[in-house]
């Protein structure tokens, strides 16, 4: 059924399969309608035009989720139960941006009998500018 990453077969420097997604205003509107954090900069086009951003921007949490999706895909339970994520938002995301989420293995370690994989993670836009940088850590338990 699900095939997760094998700790022994993973090597330092290895790139996990990237995820590519397009941000749209429709997805932003949908996200904002679920979140307990209303800000007109995300959804009010006329308002957003008058700000220094000159247009709407996506909520950070919306595309942080892409990193979690990639880690869940490859580590399953070892992400849901034991995942650690540390991120910095470094650039805004606009509707229409094409975002590529990447994870590169930077460390493998065994702590108290647990096999742990540490990845450097980043989300970049179509101009190859980072919008999120950080690290993600998962257990290999599948």
């Amino acid at each position, binding site marked *: *059924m*699900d095939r997760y990453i094998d700790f022994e077969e993973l090597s330092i420097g290895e790139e996990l399969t990237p995820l590519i*997604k397009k941000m749209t205003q429709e*997805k*932003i509107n*949908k*996200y904002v*309608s*679920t*979140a*307990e*954090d209303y*800000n007109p900069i995300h959804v009010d086009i006329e308002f957003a035009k008058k700000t220094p951003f000159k247009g709407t921007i996506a*909520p*950070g*949490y*919306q*595309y*942080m*989720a*892409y*990193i*979690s*999706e990639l880690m*869940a*895909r490859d580590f399953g*339970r070892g*992400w*849901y*139960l*034991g*995942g*650690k*994520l*540390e*991120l*910095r*938002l470094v650039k805004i995301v606009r509707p229409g941006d094409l975002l590529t989420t990447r994870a590169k293995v930077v460390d493998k370690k065994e702590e108290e009998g647990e096999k742990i994989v540490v990845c450097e993670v980043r989300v970049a836009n179509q101009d190859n500018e980072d919008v999120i940088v950080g690290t993600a850590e998962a257990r290999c338990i599948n």
Partner: protein
Amino acid sequence: MKELLFDDMSKGMKFPDIVYTLTTETIEKYLEAIDDLNPLYLDDDYADKTPYEGVIVPPISMGIYSTVSSVIKALGVKTPPGLIHAQQRFEFTGLVRPDDILTVKTIVEDKFEKKGRKFVVLKSEVFNQKGVKIGTSWLTPIWPK
């Protein structure tokens, strides 16, 4: 609503608990918004046959209900305009299920000034209705004033 200023917060200060029910309707919209249509999150028949024994919710969905503004709102105040999200950290420790009733407990873990900027570290622990800690977030906004 009155604004909560940097000087109004002190290290160790507790915010009132937030109680939030993660409904199937919200989850479905959320999954469309983040473009993640994993059957483990959406399809009961599929999920029942996995080791998870039923549908789960992606843990990063904490971002729906455990935000700087939702935490601050619980005090009856709001953040001043211009807040910047500098850094965020998460640990996921328990499975989240649809219709879970989640309690968010938040404290000011730290506050400091660096290069003229005011940083606040808000630590939120999220527990489900069984008292299991499903995750923790540390949100570090730069407070505008």
